[in-house]
């Protein structure tokens, strides 16, 4: 095994642990922290089913963002659409045998990489040129966009221009996943693929300690996930109940 292969193997194990443990701890924290008062942004659904629909519209269509600014919505939605299409297509590097729907959509979904990159560039332009958005941006907000553009660009260049030994990449990850180090192949050494894999490690590590926590966060947002029924049901947190004694 090459030095590069060993390094990547170690990095991916470490990054996976950090990602999974980090996210799990964060989600647990959100779960455990009480929401002592009913604060849905009204008009809000009056049933759990309604809340599920509201959340669905938020997560899938970015409903509130759409009401808010059309440009941000357009670029943001393109980016996320592309991102999830690409990630879905990526399942084929990890599954054996590959799930049929992944095979079917693969030839088509690869073009959605462009939606992802165009979306990211649009969001970057907004961050640079709209004075209000520039004012609220920290260096990390730019770096996050650069990181994702980097991942997208190296990936797309590999797919559409230079190509890499996809079989070797897949085999490497299958071996990692099954903890089988005997027949582990070396990862390809073309710079684009090395950069792609390297940047993905960074993304995995920063995920649970950055604003990417918006992905789990949205589901825990009390203004969006609460049912509007405070007159019908008493809603009291444990710490608040103690005040009654």
């Amino acid at each position, binding site marked *: 095994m090459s030095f590069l292969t060993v390094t990547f193997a170690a990095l991916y194990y470490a990054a996976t642990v950090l990602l999974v443990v980090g996210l799990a701890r964060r989600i647990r924290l959100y779960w455990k922290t009480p929401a002592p008062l009913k604060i849905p942004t009204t008009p809000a659904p009056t049933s759990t089913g309604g809340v599920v629909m509201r959340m669905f519209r938020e997560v899938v269509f970015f409903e509130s963002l759409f009401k*808010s600014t059309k440009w941000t919505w357009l670029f943001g939605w393109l980016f996320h659409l592309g991102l999830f299409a690409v990630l879905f297509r990526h399942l084929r590097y990890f599954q054996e045998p590959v799930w049929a729907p992944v095979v079917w959509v693969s030839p088509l979904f690869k073009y959605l990489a462009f939606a992802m990159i165009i979306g990211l560039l649009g969001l970057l332009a907004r961050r640079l040129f709209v004075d209000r958005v520039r004012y609220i941006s920290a260096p990390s907000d730019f770096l996050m966009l650069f990181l994702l553009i980097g991942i997208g660009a190296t990936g797309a260049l590999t797919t559409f221009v230079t190509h890499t030994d996809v079989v070797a990449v897949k085999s490497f990850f299958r071996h990692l996943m099954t903890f089988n180090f005997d027949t582990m192949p070396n990862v390809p050494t073309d710079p684009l693929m090395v950069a792609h894999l390297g940047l993905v490690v960074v993304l995995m590590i920063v995920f649970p300690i950055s604003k990417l926590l918006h992905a789990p966060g949205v589901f825990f947002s009390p203004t969006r996930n609460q049912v509007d029924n405070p007159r019908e049901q008493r809603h009291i947190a444990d710490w608040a109940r103690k005040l009654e004694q």
Partner: protein
Amino acid sequence: MAKADFEIPELKEYPEIPPVQPGATAGLKSFVAKPEMQDALGFPGELVDGWQEKAIEHMGELLGKYRSLQVFLDSCVKCGACTDKCHYYLGTSDPKNMPVARQDLLRKVYRRYFTFAGKYFPKLVGATDLNKEVLDDWYSYFHQCSQCRRCSVFCPYGIDTAEISMAAREIMDRIGLGQKYCNEIIGKVYKIGNNLGLPGPALEDTLEGLEEDVFDETGVEVKYPLDKKGADVLLVTPSADFFAEPHVDGLIGYGKVFHEAGIDWTLSTTASEAANFGMFIGSYENMRKISMRIREAALELGVKRIIFGECGHAWRVAYSFLNTLAGPWDFLDKNYPMPQHILEFTWGEIQKGTLNIDKSLNDDMVVTFHDSCNVARASRMGDEPGGQFTIPRNVIKAVCNNFVDMDPDTTHEKTFCCGGGGGLLTDDLMEIRVKGAKPRMEALRNVIEEHGVTNMAAICAICKAQFTKVLPYYGLGMDMIVSVHQLVSNAVILTGQQTEEDESKEDDAA
């Protein structure tokens, strides 16, 4: 036009988003609470020694108590969608009045002390130590937020800056840096029973005066009872209703509706205040204590129902929190929602046909309606989502012939705050109040010019007081603002009332 020692924003036909002007309102600070006001609420009198550590400690405690705070501080992606949604930013151009930047005042400290990235890479993620400068900004800008929740409507994660402002104010109170306006008022509620410090005998006088006025005007004996044991309904209304214009005309209206509906009702001296400023300062304990007065009054008087008068944030606390804070309300009549809004009640009576209404009595007005933020975005009326928009409009339309809505980007859940909510209704913040009213004034002026609107109806004591003060700065008459129940009062013809009603009666069988 009213005189001001600051620049009054120019109203545009189409709303404009101003370019950022850092520091524009940094120096605008409301008066700090005096030690005795702090004491009355159980907060330290002045900035304590070691306030930095104490503030961080309190922040940690609040993070563990409020999921909203924890999730909101983590989740913002700085997408900027909220940046042009706050009336205070639109009116002042100060970037720290953009909701996300306001949150960031707290978030940058949160990151510094509570997150890995902020502990080890503060510059990268914009984290900072809590120092005097940051505290100054906190005091300025968390008292330039009316907790109106407009930003939360537009944020993709529903991040509600009101929650952040409340937490920040709670932290400041606990290190001895309270705001005079809110804390002094809460003290009065504890001592006397209402925000205005009106003692029982004064209330009694006022209510007798109202009975005489209504009798002189209509020849009907409408009662405005106080502390009447065994009454069916306890009315809890903001204390401004007892004397200020146009609020008191609303109170007259409630009384007429109860009278016609044949309801045995009462006000209470100890719960002579619907407002609950405990919410503004983010203090669950104080909010609860203020709410408990209503429970105690209801038990003592033995009422079966509780109805709230026209007040925005009071209705939020009543509708959304009262069951939690002071429930369960199992001793009340189960057939009615607990609590009920006076508009729900009046709309019910209108539908039943108990009220004899002559709409033409309001024909001298073309009315528009200002949705109060706390009613619009933090509560409901009726059984359907959005009842808080339809019920007030239905009532207005049932008593007025001429009604026009303002630009839909400024009504319903997108309504703009009056500029004086959330504990900002104080003279020492007049500049921010006038500037924050700009978007509403713009929308109002447009309907005045296009549709000849003469009056704007509101259902909130703060809105009414704020507009009365602020309209003149924009060259508009302060008496434009009316209570919704004032309109009802104008149009209701009491049973036995002597009028020239006979001809007009047929007009509105509806």
